[in-house]
Every structure is written in structure tokens, then in C-alpha cells.
């Protein structure tokens, strides 16, 4: 619909360059520990992306995304152990099944208004967590639940053949994550994105324009579920062994905090969120500081964003940079204009200010 401006045409090139650096240059430079950390950052960025879309585009809050992540992981582990489907396909199917489950929940739940919707997601996530703590995750065992208690150590979820090593799996994860971001971007720039913008600002206006609000809310919900399901599959392949304690309720709240802090009005905010959630704790650990400080920081962050800076970091930093850029270009333009006015000889002296 829109013809891209010059700066918009540059952006994909920058992103692609960044992606190439991350995928090709980084892995050999990092130790195994940091590769693990960055893999987690990539995975949780995708989870954050789902919530970022829900909150920033449609104005919906879900407090249960970590439970959805666990569901995705469960389905992926089940498929990985019970079948020999290639791993990328396992991810896709896990995403699709999570999409279906998410939509089934969304159909009745989306009729609720903001607060009640958030609360019902909290309740359902709690229920899922209780069930999972009893059924556990598939680990190659028999039956539908596919879990056996074994004292010999559980087998790990298999990885794709070409990405079996940690650095290899890191590259694979980053590429899948990039694909998810591309999917999100496509949505935002086309018809669903426009409909979401209308819904977020004014549901009456959206209706008056013919937007089927229920459909588009469900679409966002389904998309977020799909992505989080895929992330769950990536997580299963990454850590190999899934346990309920990896998906605590507290993480759903922390996810909300980091997504808010990263900024919900820009997709980059999800990347920042992933970093806040998984990179910062590792850094703090490295520096010998307690991780609890982060929990406190995130709490303060939530309050700060909600009370003052709606756009979060992703909006604030570009704004500051843009302001700087604007000031610089204004100076450049002024000098150019001055040079034009006096093409021969030195510029006339400016009167004293």
C-alpha cells in the first residue's frame, strides 16, 4: 500500500547484516556457556514477541504465556520422541497445535474485557501448571503422556541433524527466531496490522469501518500462541530435558515486566525483552551479584513504564537518537544554506546573537 521511503528501504539491509553477524561471526567467539545464554535469549525473544504483539498491537494482556511455552515444549517433546519427523517440522506442528489450543481458549475468553481476560489467562496457566507437574513432560516413555520415571537419566529431545552441536543449534534457533519476527512484521505491515491499530484505538471506529473485531483479536491470539508454541519446541531442543520447575508462574509475571520495559510499540522491544530476561541474569551471575536484584529491578521497571514512559526502552532510545540526528542534520542544513547564499568569497559575518 505505502511506497517505502528511503530510510525504510535501508532498514532491512541493516537487519540482515546484523543477522549475518550474529549467525556467522558470534558463535566461534563465545564459550559454551554464553552460547547457551544467547540461545535462551533468542527463544525468549520469540515468547516476548507474542506478548508484545498482543499488548502493543491489540491491547490484550496474557499472564499465561509461560504456560503456553510449556505446552509447546510438551507437544514438541512428544513428537520428537514418538515419531521420527524432522525437527523443523516438529517445530511447525508444535506451533500449529499450540495455535489450535490457544484459539479454543480464546474463543470464549476474548469476550472478556482487559482485566478479566488477563485474570482468566492467569487462572488457566495455573491449571496447566498443576496438570504438568503431575503428568510431567514426555521423555521417551510409553503411552500418551510419554513419561517414565527413570533413575538412569532421561534421554534428551533430539535436535536437527545439521544443528546437533550447541553453536549449530544456536544458529538454527536464531534463524527460526528471525523467521518468527519476519512473520510478525508481515502481519503488522498489512491488513491485520491496520485492523489491530484501529481496534486498539477505538473499537467503535473499527466496527464502523467494517473490521470484524472478534476475528482480528482471535488472529492476534492465534499468532501469539503459534509463536510461543514454536519457541517451546526450540526450548525443548535446546535444554533437551523439560521439567515443570522451568516454567514457574513467576516467569509469566517477569515476562510481562520485561515486555513492558522493552517497549510494546516496536517489535525490537521483544528482542530487548529477551535480553532482559535471559542475558541480564547471566551477566549478573558472572559479576557475582544476586539474581534477586533483577526481580526487584523488573518490578520497578513495570511501575516506571506504566506510570510514566509508555513506549518503553524501544521507543525511548530511538527517540533520543532521532532527536540527536535531527539536531545534527539541522546544523548541516544551516551550513549548506549559508554556503549557497555566498557562492563566491567567504560567508558574510553573522550579526552578534
Amino acid at each position, binding site marked *: 500500500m505505502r511506497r517505502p521511503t528511503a530510510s525504510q528501504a535501508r532498514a532491512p539491509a541493516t537487519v540482515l547484516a546484523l543477522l549475518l553477524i550474529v549467525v556467522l561471526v558470534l558463535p566461534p567467539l563465545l564459550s559454551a556457556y554464553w552460547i547457551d545464554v544467547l540461545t535462551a535469549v533468542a527463544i525468549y525473544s520469540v515468547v516476548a514477541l507474542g506478548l508484545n504483539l498482543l499488548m502493543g498491537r491489540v491491547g490484550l494482556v496474557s499472564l499465561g504465556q509461560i504456560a503456553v511455552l510449556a505446552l509447546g515444549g510438551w507437544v514438541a517433546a512428544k513428537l520428537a520422541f514418538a515419531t521420527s519427523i524432522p525437527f523443523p517440522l516438529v517445530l511447525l506442528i508444535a506451533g500449529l497445535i499450540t495455535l489450535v489450543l490457544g484459539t479454543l481458549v480464546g474463543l470464549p475468553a476474548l469476550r472478556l474485557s482487559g*482485566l478479566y481476560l488477563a485474570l482468566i489467562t492467569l487462572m488457566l496457566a*495455573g491449571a496447566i501448571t498443576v496438570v504438568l507437574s503431575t503428568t510431567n513432560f514426555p521423555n521417551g516413555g510409553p503411552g500418551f503422556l510419554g513419561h517414565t520415571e527413570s533413575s538412569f537419566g532421561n534421554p534428551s529431545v533430539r535436535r536437527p541433524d545439521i544443528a546437533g552441536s550447541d553453536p549449530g543449534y544456536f544458529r538454527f534457533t536464531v534463524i527460526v527466531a528471525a523467521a518468527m519476527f519476519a512473520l510478525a512484521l508481515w502481519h503488522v505491515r498489512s491488513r491485520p496490522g491496520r485492523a489491530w491499530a484501529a481496534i486498539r484505538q477505538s473499537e467503535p471506529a473499527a466496527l464502523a469501518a467494517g473490521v470484524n473485531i472478534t476475528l482480528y483479536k482471535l488472529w492476534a491470539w492465534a499468532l501469539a500462541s503459534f509463536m510461543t508454541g514454536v519457541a517451546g519446541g526450540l526450548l525443548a531442543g535446546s535444554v533437551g530435558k523439560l521439567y515443570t520447575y522451568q516454567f514457574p508462574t513467576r516467569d509469566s*509475571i517477569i515476562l*510481562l515486566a520485561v515486555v*513492558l520495559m522493552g517497549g510494546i510499540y516496536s517489535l525490537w522491544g521483544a528482542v530487548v525483552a529477551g535480553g532482559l530476561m535471559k542475558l541480564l541474569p547471566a551477566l549478573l551471575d558472572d559479576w557475582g551479584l544476586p539474581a534477586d536484584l533483577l526481580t526487584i529491578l523488573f518490578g520497578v521497571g513495570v511501575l516506571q513504564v506504566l506510570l510514566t514512559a509508555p513506549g518503553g526502552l524501544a521507543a525511548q532510545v530511538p527517540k533520543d537518537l532521532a532527536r540527536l540526528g535531527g539536531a545534527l542534520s539541522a546544523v548541516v542544513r544551516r551550513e549548506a544554506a549559508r554556503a549557497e547564499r555566498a557562492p563566491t568569497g567567504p560567508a558574510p559575518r553573522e550579526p552578534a546573537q
Partner: protein
Amino acid sequence: MPSWQDFQPFIVAGLALGGVYALSGVGMVVLYRTTGVLNLAFGAVGAMGALIAWTLINTYGWPEGLAYLVCIAFGAAISLGYGLLAGPPLAGRDPLVKAAATLGLALILLGTMSWIWSDKARSMVLPTTTWRHEVGEVLINWTQILALALGVLITLTTAVFLRRTGLGTAMRALANDREITASLGVPVRRVEATTWVVSGALSGVAGLLLSNLVGLDAATLTFLVISSLAAALIARLRSLVVTLAAGIVIGLVNAVVTPIFSISPYRDMTPFVLAAVALLFLARHQQISFARRIT
């Protein structure tokens, strides 16, 4: 299928817990109706108060009664502080934003508790827990009786208070329409502050009781708020008596299912499932929910 005798201790435990869920639920409902804030940090506040009391008793040798009072005062103070700080900037915003902000408070408290107290197992024994009775074949302690009694008492007292006193009427007026109430000359800020104080004190009381009924662990106590929340939601964040009934039912069902081995592992689902069903039931007639921006 277990026998009636097997159920009895669980019925007692369930009633006691239900009483605490009820009084917490009432605290949350009154606060929500008066200020529009659904305080999801309710449990965290009580947890930290209980931990402070524990430290005062066990590390500094304070007399127990005084320490318990500090716990309740702490609950009141932190809640008031939060209400004064976060109340005005968020005053006109969607209840979702106000509730999300309390999650910020919850995280701050959780992090602080984890940092100062870490996850060591602790126990704090109220004097009422040591006074035991045998009723039939069950051993009941006075903390359990206190919990249930307080639950009922606080619900009824609050209900009467809201209807009969000037302050209560002011709270109900605020719940109805803040702007109009302010224009009538009601000291809105003072009424809200009072509500925060009372709600905070209740969270301190709940923290003390739960530390005995369930255990003194920061995370557990914090997330038990979900059960109280479930009771409040079943009451549609409105009726205090329904909150009481719902709280007791949740406590009872959760506990009574324990000896039934086939479904026992799923008993903790009780509050979640009941609340989810109640919420969906609420939604059955909804058409458009005019959503507003998150920030």
C-alpha cells in the same frame, strides 16, 4: 474411597484456609470497588510481613505479640505507601493497568524477600496453634478456628460497615463514581488512603494465619493470593457474602480432595478452574468490550 473419619481433618483444614481466602478476598474486593485497584500483590505483602515478624521473634528476640502487630502494621504501611505513590498517576486508567502495576509491587517484594530471607524453610508458630482441642476424632487447633471465625467476622463486619457508617457510604459512593463523589465534598483521597490501610492490615493478618496453616515460604504465600482472587472473581468483585462462601468452598474442595488419591494430584487446580468457570459465565452476555490503550 476414604472414610468419613479420613475426611474430617481435611474438612477442618479446608474450612480454616477458606476462612483466610474469604478475609483476603474481602480485603481485595473492598479495595477494588473503592479505588479500582485489584491488588495482586496482596499475598506478597502479607508474606513479607510474616517474614519480618519471624525475624523479629527469632533473630532479635522480640515478644511475639509485638512482632505480629509489626507484621500487620507493615502490611498497612506498605499498602498505604503504594496507594499514595501509584494511586494518583494511574487514577483515570483502565483497571487492567492498575492491576498490572501491582504486579510491579509484587515483583519488588518477591525479589526483596528472596534476597533477604532466601528460600530457607522456616516456621512460625502462633500461640493459637499450640492450643488444641479434640472434637470427635479430629484434632483442631485454635489457629484454624480463628481463621474461619475471622473470615466470617470480617466479611459480616465489613458488609455492615459499608452500609451503616459514613465512611462506608463514602467508600460505596467512590466505587460508584469517583468524580461525582469528589464533587460532593467527600474527601476522596482520605477515604482511599483508609481503604488501603485496612486492606493492607488484612493482608498482614492473612500472612500470619497462612504462615501457620500452610507454611512460611515467600513464593507459596505470594501465590496463594490466586485462591483469594478466585473467590473474589466468583463474587464478580462485588458481593462480600459471595466472596465468603466462595472462599470457603475453594478451601474445602481443595482440602477435601486430598485423601482421594485418584484426583488428589490435581487438587491445586480447584481455585483456577472455579475462577475460570466463573469468569466465562460472566462473559456469556458480553458484546463489545471497549478496550483502551495499555499505556
